[in-house]
């Protein structure tokens, strides 16, 4: 029989005020095997731990029960204490008499009784605890970054600088992401491309960074330190090694009617294209759905003109399998579709646009070469209305319940830039609240009002009505004046809500990373572990975790990189010893356990078994303890009862059940 010590913590008055700790000690001493029991105000303190150490030594304890706070709080503390004093850490059990008892019950008698039962269950369990040894698993010293926007680029650069190889997987033909589509950035108004392009070039030329553009993650298996990932390299139909990026193919391509995604569909592009001039890599792709050669077999003009001989219509998708120690998700965002917001006439009028479309219109490389024009008739707008919170802060079935965070600032930016460049154009902003927390942010917004005369109206817009003369009649409200307003405008810009990239759900499922109701990835702790996913080895960078602007994204990208570096710097990781184990004598090799194992940790081997003197070869299950995460699905599935989970064995749990129901 084990020699067990029971230690009851007062936690100041947190426990002792509701639980009669002396009584629990008294009852503990009546339990079989308990040779020592005591109480102390703070068991977790230095002094408390030394009392445990002393008891282990003096009473030769080989099992500990600590009645204290939740094991999520101090289990590790007491296990370390045991280990330091020569006891296997897995011979410690915690009875949670604070969160599950003293904090929720008021009646002292009831609480004491419950605490005693919880203690009893822990004692019963510890009798059956086996000393377990944590194993180790190796760490593959390479990281994967999914998404090549500013978040992904920054994370990759920081990891690469620390000396670890990083791969970036980007589904578009070029890295750059949303930031490459922006014209200027707030609050300094520097040109987005001017600050982003050097970073893109750095990423492409860094010896530790490998780019997989026009590629998508197809499959992920493994676990922290040991991920195996299949990457689908979509057929580009252009040989990346041969192409010189001269651009002749795009000029000559006769199929020029595809919507230009980079310009948000505001103009068209050729079937063979690079999304934008500074694209990295500067190698075009052929859009097979628009290419005449691919559709009809006739044409082949690009191939004829390509002096490098880079065009290859026969290219196929390729799957590349790589191993990684850590994965960073940086999948970014898109604007929400506006189909459900018919009152703004977005689908009815070409002159009602989203803010991201305005970015393209204002950009020198955009559809209007940077001239502010109405897309319907090319005229310069004289009166522009901005509408804030389109789809943001909508708890109805149409929009998103959260604040998109960036809209107040980019609208102030747009308003200011327009007033600066076109002083005779009037700008009105309908807003609910102006939210500008951030360094130099409110000052920026006030400049738009005070120096540039942007007219901010507190109130929403009910309807945008296109008029026969091509103008737009905006019906809104001024809440401060308590007046309904009818305003004739030439252009209406909608501050459209942002949402996580639509692929994120698929990626999160592959990574078993959790995702919230708005499809943002969940952090391991909202305050203390904001750049880690609850799934070990998966990290979050940028808007995939929640709306944020460029400086915040870059800061988070750096933080995620630090976490990755911290992981990759280790040679091996300690594994959870509470893994499944198969009893050779009972296993009949039926494979049912392997079917339910989410980690592929169970394999089969043929082994010579000595079953009570009968020697025969049998097919039996073997658990790879490095892969097993200890969920226990196999233990219940096993029809012969051969599979059991160390640390949570059938006998241990039944002992707990018995102790509680006694």
């Amino acid at each position, binding site marked *: 029989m084990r020699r067990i010590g029971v230690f009851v913590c007062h936690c100041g008055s947190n426990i002792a005020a509701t639980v009669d700790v002396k009584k629990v000690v008294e009852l503990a001493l009546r339990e079989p095997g308990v040779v020592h029991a005591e109480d102390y105000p703070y068991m977790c303190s230095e002094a408390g731990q030394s009392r445990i150490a002393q008891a282990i030594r003096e009473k030769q304890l080989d099992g500990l029960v600590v009645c204290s706070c939740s094991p999520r709080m101090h289990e590790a503390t007491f296990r370390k204490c045991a280990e330091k004093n020569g006891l296997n850490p897995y011979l410690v059990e915690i009875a949670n008499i604070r969160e599950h008892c003293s904090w*929720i019950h008021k009646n002292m008698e009831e609480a004491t009784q419950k605490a005693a039962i919880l203690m009893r*269950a822990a004692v019963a369990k510890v009798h059956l605890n086996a000393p377990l040894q944590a194993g180790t698993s190796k760490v593959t010293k390479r990281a994967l970054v999914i998404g090549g926007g500013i978040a992904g680029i920054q994370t990759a650069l920081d990891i690469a600088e620390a000396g670890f190889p990083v791969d970036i997987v980007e589904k578009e033909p070029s890295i750059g992401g949303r930031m490459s589509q922006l014209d200027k950035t707030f609050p300094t108004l520097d040109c987005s491309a001017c600050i982003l392009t050097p970073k893109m070039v750095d990423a492409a030329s860094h010896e530790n960074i490998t780019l997989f553009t026009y590629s998508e993650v197809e499959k992920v298996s493994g676990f922290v330190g040991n991920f195996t990932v299949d990457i689908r390299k979509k057929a580009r139909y252009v040989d990346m090694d041969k192409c010189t990026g001269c651009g002749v193919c795009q000029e000559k391509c006769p199929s020029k009617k595809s919507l230009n995604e980079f310009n948000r569909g505001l103009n068209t592009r050729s079937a063979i294209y690079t999304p934008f001039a500074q694209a990295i890599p500067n190698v075009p792709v052929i859009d097979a759905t628009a290419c005449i050669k691919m559709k009809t077999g006739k044409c082949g003009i690009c191939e004829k003109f390509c002096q490098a001989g880079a065009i290859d219509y026969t290219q196929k998708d390729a799957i590349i399998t790589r191993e990684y120690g850590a994965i960073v998700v940086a999948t970014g965002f898109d604007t929400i579709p506006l189909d459900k917001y018919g009152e703004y006439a977005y689908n009815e009028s070409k002159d009602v646009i989203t803010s991201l479309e305005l970015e393209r219109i204002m950009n020198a490389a955009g559809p209007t070469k940077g001239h502010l024009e109405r897309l319907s008739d090319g005229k310069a707008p004289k009166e522009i209305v901005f509408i804030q919170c389109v789809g943001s802060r909508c708890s109805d079935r149409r929009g998103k319940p959260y604040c998109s965070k960036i809209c107040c600032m980019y609208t102030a930016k747009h308003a200011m830039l327009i007033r600066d460049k076109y002083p005779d154009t009037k700008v009105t902003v309908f807003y609910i609240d102006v939210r500008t927390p951030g360094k130099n942010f409110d000052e920026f917004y006030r400049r738009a009002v005070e120096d540039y005369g942007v007219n901010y109206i507190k109130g929403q817009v009910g309807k945008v009505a296109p008029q026969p003369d091509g103008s737009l009649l905006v019906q809104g409200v001024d809440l401060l004046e308590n007046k309904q307003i009818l305003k004739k405008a030439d252009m209406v810009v909608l501050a459209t809500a942002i949402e996580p990239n639509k692929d994120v759900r698929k990626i999160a499922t592959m990574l078993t990373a959790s995702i919230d109701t708005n499809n943002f990835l969940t952090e391991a702790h909202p305050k203390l572990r904001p750049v880690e996913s609850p799934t070990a080895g998966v990290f979050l960078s940028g808007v995939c975790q929640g709306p944020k602007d460029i400086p915040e994204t870059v800061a988070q990208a750096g933080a995620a990189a630090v976490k990755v570096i911290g992981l990759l710097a280790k040679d091996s990781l300690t594994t959870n010893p509470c893994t499944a184990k198969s009893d050779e004598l009972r296993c009949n090799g039926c494979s049912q356990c392997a079917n339910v194992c*989410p980690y592929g940790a169970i394999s089969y081997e043929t082994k010579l078994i000595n079953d009570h003197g009968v020697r025969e070869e049998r097919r039996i299950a073997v658990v790879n303890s490095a892969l097993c995460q200890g969920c226990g699905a196999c*233990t*219940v599935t096993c029809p012969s009862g051969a599979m059991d989970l160390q640390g*949570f064995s*059938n006998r241990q749990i039944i002992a707990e*059940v018995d102790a509680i129901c*006694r």
Partner: protein
Amino acid sequence: MPVNENWKPTIVAFCCNWCSYAGADLAGSSRLSYPADVKIIKVPCSCRVNPMFILRAFEKGADGVILCGCHPGDCHYSTGNYYARRRMTLLFSMLDYLGVESGRTRVEWVSAAEGVKFSETMNSFVEKVHGLGPCVRLGDLRCKK
């Protein structure tokens, strides 16, 4: 059978380590009370709960057994709670057939953030079991004199 108001049921709650146990901790740190009749057993995942454990509990005198796990789709081990749900559906219908009323068994999804839900669930479950009175169907006669 009229139920004695002072009678206290014995209730076993199996909670998965990642969501529901943390949810119970949150209920505790938020001081959301529920009856002391509930005793929690920590398991790594709801799929670790063998139907045998639940039969054993009823055999040894439990009046109600509740299994709490992560919400569907949120399982730390991705699919464990689906296995648990399937197994429990089968087990509970068998128990019902044996005379252990369906009100004495329950599966509930409680996330780590749902302290309120945890306490509400326990309150309503205890109330339900209390209304049903002591469970004697599976009592192990060998254990009682």
